[in-house]
């Protein structure tokens, strides 16, 4: 199977390790991975901040870049939700504005083929034990767009539970938002920070060494808060844990 990696602009620029982990993991599972170099950004930040018209050309570009692949895999719940949930809505809105079906027709092909990483592993590849080894105590934060947008359910937890050596600690208040929310973190910084602190305190109470999630944007916010509070915990993307093996452990 040949799939396209949609890494997202944030991961590409700030978290290349996550991208390398996805490549390593999928290759190990027998998947041929391609990274179309023309990819950039899905338009989520533009759309969510109220710039739908700026997001549209990015969505069209996304479709141009990815439409011919069998499947598109992304290690980001929120960018996955952007494509799957909001691209169809952008098409509907364009139609309602009397601009015809062109946008909807352009975006339609990529919508059903786009998978968040854990979804792809469990639903498409049908694996929960990916042969990973990670001897640490980990707590899992289900990010909002993964949880409520894509409905990832317990897929990430099942994957983590199958990791050799990993001890999974339940996170109190797991389903509460960490307070990132893209531009929300800037526009409502006080509330965002207060939410972040509560998330970190809850994570701390589990005694875990690592907080894991399926979206680096949330991890950036949580990790930045951890660093500021000098909490002895690390944020790690789930792809990096799943890519870690006894031969090649995650540093």
């Amino acid at each position, binding site marked *: 199977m040949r799939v396209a990696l949609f*890494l997202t*602009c944030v991961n*590409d*620029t*700030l*978290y*290349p*390790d996550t*991208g*390398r982990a996805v*490549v*390593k993991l999928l290759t190990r599972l027998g998947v041929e*991975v391609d*990274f179309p*170099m*023309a*990819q*950039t*950004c899905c*338009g989520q*930040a*533009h*759309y*969510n*901040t*109220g*710039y*739908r*018209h*700026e997001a549209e*050309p*990015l969505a069209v570009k996304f479709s141009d870049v990815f439409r011919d692949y069998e499947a598109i895999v992304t290690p980001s719940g929120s960018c996955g939700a952007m494509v799957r949930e909001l691209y169809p809505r952008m098409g509907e*809105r364009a139609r309602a504005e009397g601009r015809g079906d062109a946008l909807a027709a352009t975006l339609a092909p990529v919508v059903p083929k786009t998978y968040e990483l854990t979804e792809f592993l469990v639903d498409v590849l049908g694996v929960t034990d990916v042969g990973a080894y990670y001897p640490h105590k980990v707590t899992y934060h289900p990010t*909002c767009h993964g949880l*409520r947008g894509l409905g990832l359910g317990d897929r990430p937890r099942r994957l983590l539970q199958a990791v050799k050596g990993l001890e999974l600690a339940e996170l109190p208040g797991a389903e*509460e*938002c960490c*307070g990132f*929310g*893209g531009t*929300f*973190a*800037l*526009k*409502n*910084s*006080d*509330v*965002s920070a*207060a*939410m972040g*602190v509560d998330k970190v305190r809850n994570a701390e109470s589990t005694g875990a060494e690592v907080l894991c999630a399926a979206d680096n944007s949330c991890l*950036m*916010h949580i*990790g*930045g*808060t951890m*660093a*500021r509070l000098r909490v002895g915990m690390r944020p790690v993307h789930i792809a990096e844990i799943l890519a870690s093996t006894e031969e090649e452990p995650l*540093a």
Partner: protein
Amino acid sequence: MSGTYLGMPAFPAAAHEAVRDRTLRGNLRHATHTIRAKRAKAVAEVSDWAALREAGRQIKDHTLRHLDRYLVQLEESVTAAGGVVHWAADADEANRIVAELVRATGESEVVKVKSMATQEIGLNEALEAEGIRAYETDLAELIVQLGKDRPSHILVPAIHRNRGEIRDIFRSEMAEWGRPAPEGLTDTPAELAEAARLHLREKFLRAKVGISGANFMVAETGTLVVVESEGNGRMCVTLPETLISVVGIEKIVPTWRDLEVFLQTLPRSSTAERMNPYTSTWTGTTDEDGPNTFHLVLLDNGRTDTLADQVGRQALRCIRCSACLNVCPVYERAGGHAYGSVYPGPIGAILSPQLRGTQSEIDASLPYASSLCGACYEVCPVAIDIPEVLVHLRERVVQGGPVTRGGNKVVLRPAKGHAAERAAMRASRWAFGHPGVLRTGQRLASRSRRFLPRTLPGPGRAWSASRDLPQVPAEPFRDWWQRTRGGKDGGDGK
């Protein structure tokens, strides 16, 4: 809407204070988490919740689509049952109508059932200006009124107060409004409730005029439906000689059968009860019992403008259960007052800027008072996609566009203060349209990474004031990919 909250600072400024108030945050956290857990249990008991939710959504959408027809039908049935219908286009008109109706009775005191519509129009203040005193009879509303405070929650207006604060308010304020608090009042719930009961009983027995809102109005019979927990509302709609009800035009349900759905979903969503302790239905007037005069004031106040908006109109499905407030992490930290309206929380963030327009500072900031986490949508018993409407209203704020105000189509200009953001969004869209530009930017960042600060200047300062920024990596992914083709061509593939 009422002028009560005009001049409010934008949401972030109002929230700034609330986030620092430890008592407030403690009160809110305790209250919302308790009710949240109870609601989840009450909802889980119902095997067909999803179907009920969908039915509620459909009934409301159908009614809104044919609102003109149902409003006429409602007027006919209320009139046939002996009531009088008045139409109010805005808050001023509604207040004027109610004040005239009260004055016509010769009374200068009224008792009130807790009602969002009358708070929305600032009725108490308007009556006060006419020399008419309105007594709130809902316990929490009484606390707010005595405390010269504002409600901060739809269902539990005094949610921001703890028992000790309530005792202090009763002790110092009750005498001024009627029967004083009993000597040596403590902060036990039973004693507080008894003090309120004695105080209110006097009012109920004396009042000749009652004012209410309604949770629903049944079009086929002209029936007013009030659901509540304390029974004080029932006293208000049955004891006085004259009943005046101020009801938003979106409160209609076509038939009695439709109530079946909402009388299941509303209590479970709001108080986590299987059924409301008091459900009062009242149709017109009779000679034997209850008020012999009934006036229904149907309130628009921005609702038909809201109805004209294809995306935003779903806010009118709201049955004011407040479940969205109780799960909202932003509401929990910012408190209800920060929303600058009687409608706080997620529903307030989408309703106020539609009813009032997005011109004021507070209204332009409300669509951003959310991290779009989606918890509100998940719990909403009429499936209002609050995040969708928030994003839609953000678009209105930053880009302007066609809206309906006062029944007229107008084209809004973008709100002030977004020029820099708009430029940044355009620039980044342009850069993302050209992968080469993105790459150059990434490389520049990588090369200068050792000199990049961990805190940001300008608008980013708010972020880095409380969080550390990640370090820019030495090599962006796409460079690694190109160098190694995914680790195959000689790269270290780490």
